[in-house]
């Protein structure tokens, strides 16, 4: 019965993903409908409650963010909405490479937060960024094993063991690219059984106990709580991922988006990210 929380957790994640996906759909539709009023409304000076700022922010802020930012950005979004009641922050969490493809093919978004400079470059090289991206956090890989460590994994060299069931991220995804670097640094040829689509999918396989070990981010191990145990390894030093964030040049709601971006970069925002296990500058 100890695996019950693991199942519940994974279920929660699946349901959450579905809800987010549909929320995004609604967000996109809403945004498409109200693009013009929003652009005007967001700089409109307030008449009734002008106690702290001269302009009130309104409308939707669409944030495409790396899957590993799910918990911390959801928190930041809720805090930002509390401070700016007329703004709704909608998130599209996924593999940074997927998000980059979506943005370059025209999916509306105000902000892109990627888990690697490479995936960010896909967007900025296509002229999608308004200004230069800023690195706001970094994250390091950690070995994740199901609670109780059934495979008796204690280091990176266990990933070469054919007898263990191993999940890694696909190489196209930042966590997979980082894993490749870590294995190269350690001189280990891993024997994975599955290459998952994004880091949260990889983590879910650990939470469900379907794999003996996986390489995910330190932040994911923390987010998973008691269902997953983390094992640090020295080679993670050579595979630290920088997370860049940028305001997009075709942002439907640039004023409110800039405000959210400033909030992410603020001391308060950094604290939320640091609490989630990110390394902040």
């Amino acid at each position, binding site marked *: 019965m100890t695996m019950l929380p693991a*199942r519940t957790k994974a279920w929660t994640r699946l349901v959450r993903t579905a809800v987010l996906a549909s929320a995004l759909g609604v967000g996109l539709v809403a945004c498409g409908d109200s693009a013009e009023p929003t652009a005007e409304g967001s700089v409109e000076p307030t008449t009734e409650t002008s106690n702290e700022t001269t302009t009130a922010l309104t409308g939707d802020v669409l944030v495409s963010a790396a899957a590993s930012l799910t918990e911390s950005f959801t928190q930041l979004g809720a805090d930002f909405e509390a401070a700016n009641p007329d703004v709704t922050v909608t998130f599209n969490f996924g593999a940074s490479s997927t998000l980059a493809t979506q943005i370059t093919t025209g999916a509306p978004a105000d902000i892109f937060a990627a888990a690697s400079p490479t995936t960010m470059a896909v967007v900025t090289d296509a002229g999608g960024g308004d200004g230069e991206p800023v690195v706001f956090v970094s994250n390091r890989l950690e070995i994740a094993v199901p609670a109780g460590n059934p495979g008796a994994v204690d280091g990176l060299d266990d990933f070469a063991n054919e007898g263990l069931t191993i999940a890694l991220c696909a190489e*196209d995804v930042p966590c997979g690219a980082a894993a490749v670097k870590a294995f190269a640094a350690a001189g280990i040829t891993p024997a994975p*059984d599955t290459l998952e689509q994004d880091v949260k999918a990889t983590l879910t396989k650990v939470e469900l*106990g379907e794999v003996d070990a996986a390489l995910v981010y330190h932040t994911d191990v923390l987010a998973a709580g008691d269902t997953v145990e983390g094992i640090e390894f020295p080679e993670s030093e050579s595979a630290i991922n920088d997370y860049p964030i940028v305001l997009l040049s075709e942002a439907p709601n640039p004023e409110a988006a800039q405000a959210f971006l400033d909030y992410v970069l603020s001391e308060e925002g950094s604290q939320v990210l640091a609490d989630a296990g990110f390394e902040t500058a």
Partner: protein
Amino acid sequence: MPRPRGPGSGIPPVMLALSALALAFLVLPLLALVLRAPWRTLPAELASPEVGQALRLSLLTASMATVICLVLGVPLAWVLARATFPGRRIVRALVTVPLVLPPVVGGVALLLLLGRRGLVGQYLDAWFGVTLPFTTPAVVIAEAFVAMPFLVIAVEGALRSADRRYEDAAATLGASRWLTLRRVTLPLVAPGVTAGAVLCFARALGEFGATITFAGSFPGVTRTMPIQVYLALESDPPAAIALSLVLLLVSVVVLASLRDRWITGGAG
């Protein structure tokens, strides 16, 4: 345009306009796929080892899934069409659940049943050392799970519309039930079975959600064509379009071989 044959039989302009819109909605995306295809580099894209691997795996697993569906699905269809027992309607409804269930949910359900800690999977692991997730058989199971309803419904429809007097005649002439089934009933509904098998194969070939959830994604073992398309879209969009064309071609071939047999078979 054919002349209206009587009052009320002409097509109202609104209906005409809306149906044209519906047709454009269904056809234009596919047209875009064909128009944007990297025709010049297509042979090179399709000759890459990953594509060959994914295509072989997809054909193999979809064929095996179809065989499983035939072996288990035809008897189920026969029972649903010929036998009367309490709860038959409920059984019939249950059979069609995977048809409307989001495939990802099917994948999660399969994990919870057959995964390493699943209801049945934990015993498979403990007693036989068998773990299904991340193996090719897991792909076949996921595909069979989503595809079987197509076969069952097609075959059941064919059985219901088949003339039972031939079976009665065979029985009168002294044929056993098993002989009647083999020599009379099955040949009679063969077109329905074929149509069901083709649809079942096509659905299995296109399976994505249940497969990636239950079987994972590893080249040559569990990474089928649809998963390869999804992955390629992130790193190499032209390759993804090339792969999509192959799947589109397979669908068109399936459709052409089927014509409207399934629909007429099922309507009876």
